[in-house]
């Protein structure tokens, strides 16, 4: 019997912009309410065949209609409630590598193209409308579609330029680090900022010249002198845009995004596996040991996080078993390579993450975008060949590293790299050794404050040791 006295669902903290509906969580499942305000567009979205085509092409997240919507409480604004397929792990644009952001942009434009054939348009172009399921970009905002009104300009144009064109262009002409601007500007990189950052030679790219330079110049002009009154603004907003111009705009955006190649800069970890100190035999042994430790974990993990995953070499051990594996790395080139690696499993999601400065909670009230910790803990975390970089490279005391792992993991498979290992020696060669407590005894003691030791095994042909820990509290 449905509970008719139940309170109406509370929208997710990030779902407040669209009067057509909102996303909410109910018993750990994500639902979307379609409001009466969005009914007409939603019905057209379904009846026109657009939804079916997008689902058939795996471009949008499929959903089913929740039949017993009364169980979600009464809401006079409600038309219906849908239950979308659940996304295994929510990631954010500031955690994506260059090719991921580019693919998200192209997905948005492709969906727009298909929508137009069905008499609809995207009413916004937020990068947050896209998620990755493994390496597949998928559109998640079912209520982003509006019936196309002939002559109406595209409302999502400015947003598309700020969420996609500007960050990709800045990264293209500067460095990969430019993508971090999306963390400071969650509403997209302001075009006037992009204008100031981009080098003059970027103007020779016709797309960038149009969509960033001219666009920001136009914004500036109207901010200063144009559209001073409400009527003037209304007049501009109702100025018709021909269908040819609309299609031309889409074609131009697509050409611009496709023209943006990754930056040419190199990074420290881009070719990491060319420079490890492992022998081929030792490397294989480590692979086998990680696999064996995985089998000791019960129940079978649903989610694995691999910190310092680089190109996903070891993440593959979990991903190949069908376990959803988030392969984190600080290096954008390594993450991009992992994403583009065709042989890697589809259950692996490569993302950028700096463990020392992890993704914080962002947005209104600090609740719109979850922090790294709010999206965990993972069932298992891999920390392979990373601890010396944290402890010695970034001066993090071992107990603090253990605190971090306790906040993110139920189990940890971790490799301890001691002093005397050639990689640690390199780290210490150019600096004073101020790490008297960096040894295996102190490491184990730090970990045991939060974890129970399950297995400890020396990695053959190396000085390193592999541990499996289980969280105690």
């Amino acid at each position, binding site marked *: 019997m449905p509970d008719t006295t139940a309170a109406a669902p509370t929208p997710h903290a990030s779902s407040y912009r669209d009067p057509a509906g909102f996303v909410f969580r109910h018993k750990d499942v994500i639902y979307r309410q379609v409001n009466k305000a969005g009914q007409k567009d939603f019905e057209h979205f379904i009846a026109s065949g657009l939804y079916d085509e997008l689902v058939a092409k795996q471009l949008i997240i499929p959903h089913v209609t929740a039949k017993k919507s009364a169980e979600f409480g009464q809401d006079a604004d409600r038309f219906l409630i849908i239950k979308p397929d659940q996304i295994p792990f929510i990631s954010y644009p500031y955690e994506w590598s260059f090719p991921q952001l580019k693919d998200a942009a192209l997905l948005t434009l492709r969906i727009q193209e298909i929508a137009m054939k069905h008499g609809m348009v995207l009413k916004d172009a937020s990068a947050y409308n896209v998620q990755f399921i493994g390496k597949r970009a998928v559109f998640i905002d079912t209520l982003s579609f509006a019936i196309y009104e002939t002559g109406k300009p595209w409302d999502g144009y400015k947003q598309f330029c700020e969420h996609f064109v500007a960050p990709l262009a800045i990264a293209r002409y500067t460095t990969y680090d430019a993508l971090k601007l999306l963390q400071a500007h969650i509403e997209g990189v302001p075009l006037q900022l992009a204008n100031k950052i981009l080098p003059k030679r970027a103007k020779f790219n016709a797309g960038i010249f149009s969509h960033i330079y001219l666009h920001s110049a*136009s914004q500036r002009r109207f901010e200063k002198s144009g559209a001073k009154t409400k009527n003037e603004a209304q007049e501009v907003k109702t100025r018709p845009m021909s269908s040819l*111009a609309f299609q031309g705009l889409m074609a131009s955006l697509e050409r611009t995004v496709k023209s943006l190649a990754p930056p040419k800069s190199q990074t420290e970890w881009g070719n990491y596996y060319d420079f490890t100190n492992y022998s081929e035999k030792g490397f294989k042994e480590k692979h086998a040991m990680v696999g064996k430790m995985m089998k000791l974990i019960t129940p079978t993990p649903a989610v694995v996080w691999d910190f310092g995953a680089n190109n996903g070499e070891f993440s593959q051990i979990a991903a190949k078993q069908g376990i959803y594996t988030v392969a984190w790395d600080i290096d954008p080139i390594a993450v991009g390579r992992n994403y583009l690696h065709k042989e890697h499993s589809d259950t692996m999601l490569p993302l950028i993450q700096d463990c020392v400065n992890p993704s914080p909670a962002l947005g209104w009230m600090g609740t719109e975008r979850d922090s790294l910790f709010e999206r965990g803990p993972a069932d298992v975390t891999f920390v392979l060949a990373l601890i010396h970089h944290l402890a010695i490279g970034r001066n993090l005391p071992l107990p603090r590293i253990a605190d971090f792992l306790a906040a993110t993991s139920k189990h940890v498979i971790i490799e301890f790299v001691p002093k005397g290992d050639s990689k640690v020696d390199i780290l210490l060669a150019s600096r004073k050794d101020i790490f008297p407590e960096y040894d295996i005894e102190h490491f184990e003691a730090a970990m045991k404050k939060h974890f129970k030791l399950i297995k400890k095994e020396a990695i053959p042909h190396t000085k390193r040791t592999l541990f499996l820990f289980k969280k105690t509290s």
Partner: protein
Amino acid sequence: MHELFNFAYLDPSTGSIVIQSLIGVIAGVTVFGRNAIMQMRIKAKRLFSKDDKPEVKVKAKAETKQ
């Protein structure tokens, strides 16, 4: 109709609206012009290469073999 739907829930700035029409027209004409030129080229090629149709060549070869 919901009042808010008189305008989209996003508020594109005036400058964005003006410039997108301009860019769209230029890009649209360019794409349309390019397509038109391509079509004309294809038609012209067909017109001047009527005798070189592949099926004619294949037929001719087959006849020689016999």
